């Protein structure tokens, strides 16, 4: 039997060890998400790979109750602000509120043709996560 492997759905967005991935620009010092060749702010290629902080804060959120067929409703989406300057959209589990701290959580989202589980990120309110 072949071993079922865990892989990131996109390895420019998450790593299984470090969570959300981004870059910091050595020219303008600003951060971008996810990893990419050029700084989003100034276009410089002098960028270094970094990971985002483990926690951010909810800027706003919604529960989606109607979506195209391939998406299973309802689901919660949040916009999360990080201290490194990144604002990231993602799904959330559990209750969230404006201003509440959330943590990045990785989870198996899909399975590829070889049966490997493909992992992705979502957010979870910190208090609830600690329970």
């Amino acid at each position, binding site marked *: 039997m072949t071993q079922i492997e865990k892989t990131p759905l996109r390895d420019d967005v998450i790593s299984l060890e470090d969570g959300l991935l981004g870059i910091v620009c050595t020219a303008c010092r600003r951060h971008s998400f*996810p990893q990419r060749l050029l700084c989003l702010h100034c276009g410089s290629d002098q960028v270094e790979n970094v990971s985002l902080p483990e926690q951010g804060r909810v800027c*706003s959120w*919604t529960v989606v*109750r*109607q979506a195209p067929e391939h*998406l299973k409703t309802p689901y919660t989406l949040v916009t999360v602000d990080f201290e490194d*300057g990144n604002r990231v959209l993602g*799904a959330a589990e559990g209750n969230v509120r*404006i201003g509440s701290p959330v943590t990045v959580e990785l989870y198996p989202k899909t399975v590829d043709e070889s049966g490997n589980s493909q992992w992705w990120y979502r957010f979870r309110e910190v208090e609830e996560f600690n329970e």
Partner: protein
Amino acid sequence: MSETFIAGAGMVRFGKYPADITLENLAVRAAREAIADSSAAPADIEAVYMGHVFGGPVAGQRVAVQLGLGGLPVSNHENYCASGATAIREAWIAIKAGLYDIVLVIGAEKMTDRVAGGVMPDPADLDAINGLVMAANHGMSARRYMHDHGATREQIAAVAVKNHAHSVHNPYAQYQRPISLNEVLDARIIAEPLGLLDCSPISDGAAAVILCSKAGLAKLKIGSAPRIAGCALVSGKVVSSTSGLNDEDVSRRAAEQAWNISGYGPKDIDLVEMHDCFTIAEIVRLEGLGLIPVGEGGVWTENGNTSLGGKLPVNTSGGLLSRGHPVGATGVAQICELTWQLTDRAGARQVEEARLGLAYCKGGTVSGTDGGSVTVLMVER
């Protein structure tokens, strides 16, 4: 640099058309209305610009040949929901440059047979993986707006009530019946807190205008026609976690460009055709343009300031919420409405003494930014 005038406007009623009424058919009908309105002969037209998103390759050429305009320069323009407005801007640029005197611009879309459940970003965009339907962006915007400004759900819903009240007087609107506040509040939820009636529908339709230089107007023996005072186009920029979710910097930048081109400012505007793809969007975009004070959009709507007869009538046509939103056609339909308003042909929805109108479109989203494309077009009597 030649000035640009609107010599003719025409559209088909927006709505849900059966399969045998094709994109080409809708576009041809709208174009014929605009051509007839301008009294141009087909031989007078020198180029065709077509805005569409879902029409497939060379849709503009398929339409042009059906109009007997084969052989002309034809170009297709895609900027999602700002595609029609972008096509107008490209035609305006060509006339200003002195390339042509008389051109046809068409915006057309057949959506009801190819889009279901709501429009999404491009599948390759990061947000699409996270299930970002457009309504979700606006749901988050509404929730944050209520949080920051103490606006009520009722004030946001009032945008839909107002725009549906306007469209009662627009024979080209998809919906032509008034709706009550309770109908909006009680509608099934799409993306909290927004319900079905906070969302513009998926529609079919087409709209067209004939744009002319001064020489073109003379050739068509038209004494006076509304003038395009400026066309602004900007794209989204990366947002950071320190900016407000409803800062609307992209709208502010588009407005700044429009004021620079036209020499006018927010106080000069008499009426607005606003891209109300969702109720909350009308409010935050008006604020972003500087047309109403930040945080007061809800109160303004509730008090009737943006209604027909109010301080600044917004969406006399019914807007996207009730005229309908065939995405590529919307920007051109907005200019049809401004043309009719500025030539006193808007019937029961006429804004008295309207002199200067502004039309705003926003097309698409790009992950991490404050938008795809934003256009601000200004038309004066």
